[in-house]
């Protein structure tokens, strides 16, 4: 009797559209190859450890994981070994105690800093197109420093801005108390009100929702759409809704990463590994692409979404 193939796919924020999409594409692979995909959400380290145990108990042979924290690395590796499970990571790469990547675990992803840099570059390009002078522009850094990925993303953007003549004192922190739009909106409103003298603004943050909050804030204090450049990360519905609005808003673009490759290919690679003993590449890096109001459908199609 041939044992059925069972593969786990654990993600850190199951409610996020991004992970929903990853799961959706992984399911597609499962249907094509005829294996069972077990999807588990694990918001913190403890849930993750339980999830791995759970997979082991169900008789899975391997799993793909996007970990809530990369420092969990040694723990995940040990747990996977204890349960005799093959391990691959997606999106976030595991590191060991001294912060170095654990290279023996196959990984597919894009570094948070890289995404941030793409955002920064998109903002800089748009500023040039509008003819703004970097010294006169204020930047809203919608921050959620509790989450290391969020810090890396905004730091990436800031690095690019600075390299293009942005003054450090014109970058203002708007800390979100939670990762939703309302919290970002409230925090960004304060920044705008405090610096009422600045007329041109750019905004970036952890994801589309954060940047949307900053854009809404600019609208509520009366900054016109051409006085704001917000570039988000993710490119899912929140961003699309924005692009579909009848008139352009300050939300200029979003850096889309392809959940298709991340979901479909990782699941497929894991299947090949288990079924045919074909070990996946140790490191596959994907790229993010900027989508804007006029080309978002094309970009999404290129990335294999929709």
């Amino acid at each position: 009797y041939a044992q059925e193939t069972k593969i786990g796919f654990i993600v850190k924020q199951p409610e996020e559209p991004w992970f929903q999409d990853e799961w959706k594409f992984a399911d597609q692979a499962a249907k094509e190859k005829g294996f069972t995909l077990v999807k588990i959400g694990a918001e913190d380290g403890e849930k993750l450890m339980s999830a791995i145990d759970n997979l082991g108990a169900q008789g899975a042979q391997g799993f793909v994981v996007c970990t809530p924290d990369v420092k969990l690395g040694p723990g995940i590796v040990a747990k996977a070994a204890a349960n005799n499970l093959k391990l691959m990571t997606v999106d976030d790469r595991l590191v060991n105690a001294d912060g170095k990547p654990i290279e023996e675990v196959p990984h597919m992803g894009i570094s948070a800093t890289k995404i941030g840099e793409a955002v920064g570059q998109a903002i800089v390009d748009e500023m040039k197109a509008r003819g703004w002078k970097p010294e006169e522009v204020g930047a809203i850094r919608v921050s959620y420093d509790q989450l290391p990925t969020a810090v890396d993303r905004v730091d990436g953007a800031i690095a690019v801005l600075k390299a293009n003549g942005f003054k450090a004192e014109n970058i203002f922190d708007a800390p979100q108390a939670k990762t939703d739009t309302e919290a970002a909106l409230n925090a960004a409103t304060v920044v705008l009100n405090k610096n009422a003298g600045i007329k041109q603004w750019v905004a970036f943050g952890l994801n589309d929702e954060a940047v949307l909050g900053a854009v809404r804030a600019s609208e509520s204090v009366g900054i016109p759409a051409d006085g704001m450049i917000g570039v988000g990360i993710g490119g899912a519905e929140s961003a699309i809704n924005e692009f579909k609005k009848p008139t352009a808003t300050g939300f200029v673009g979003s850096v889309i990463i392809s959940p298709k490759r991340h979901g479909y290919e990782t699941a497929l690679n894991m299947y090949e590994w288990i079924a045919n003993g074909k070990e996946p590449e140790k490191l596959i890096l994907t790229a993010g692409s900027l989508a804007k109001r006029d080309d978002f459908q094309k970009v999404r199609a290129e990335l294999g979404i929709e």
Partner: protein
Amino acid sequence: MTNSFKKVLLGDQGLVVIFVLAFALVSIFVPNFLTERNMLGLLQSVVTVGIVACTMMFCLAARDFDLSVGSIVAFAGMVAVMASNATGSIIVGILAALLCGAAVGLVNGVVIAKFRINALITTLATMQIVRGLALISSDGRAVGINDPNFYQLALSKLFGVPTPIWVLLLLFVVFGFVLNRTVFGKNTLAIGGNPEASRLAGVNVDRTRIWIFTLQGVVCAIAGILLASRITSGQPNAAVGLELSVISACVLGGVSLAGGRAAIAGVIVGVMIMGIAENVMNLLNIPAFYQYIVRGVILLLAVLLDNLRSSALGRR
């Protein structure tokens, strides 16, 4: 003269006085605080918490508890957006949202009052269920608004002040009146103060509790609609953790968790203290991690001051 001043400071409205003093201090020492723009921003930032606090006050005063408010706010926002997208009518969307809010509240109320299930557990359960519904109905994604007029709910202004703030003020006035001047309000306080005595006095305890939760649902829906308009989309992840902010604003404002004590002035102050704390921390550019500490310390200080005040008065 000094005596009457002391009376004001230590009286029932003492927290209000402390608040006014603190407000004055902040206005003087924090740059950009007392500007029209910042005041409006501040008020807008407390709209959700403030609206929901109106009915949470009733809930706590009747010795109950509602953890499902955050989920209802998110769900009602989704419903408003989806229904108005589907029918093309904003009015229908709003009505649908209010109805959904009322329905969830009614379920809470009936389960708690009639089946006598602990309010904490019941609303924890509906909190999960309703959040699940919000996520399922939209497949976990934000839903955009088709009709731009919907944005006007939050953007429109009257005498230079945005509509949501007016709604908030109106609800404060209405629920302040309901609490102090109506049979419903007094019954609520009586139920919280002594449920047994209220029942024996012929107060319809079950019906009052069901009404409280239903109202809570409706009011959360109002907050949800305004929030959706403000962030120009229905978001299933909105308002996570709202319940704790609202409950702590109420308790800070002197509403007793042991029931029977509530005042709208206190709740307003509670809501404002929390809002001002956030606002000032951002104005002063306090780093995110330190904000946690400051937030905690302010909470403690506010209650501590209030306690010192009342024990100076010899009350416990």
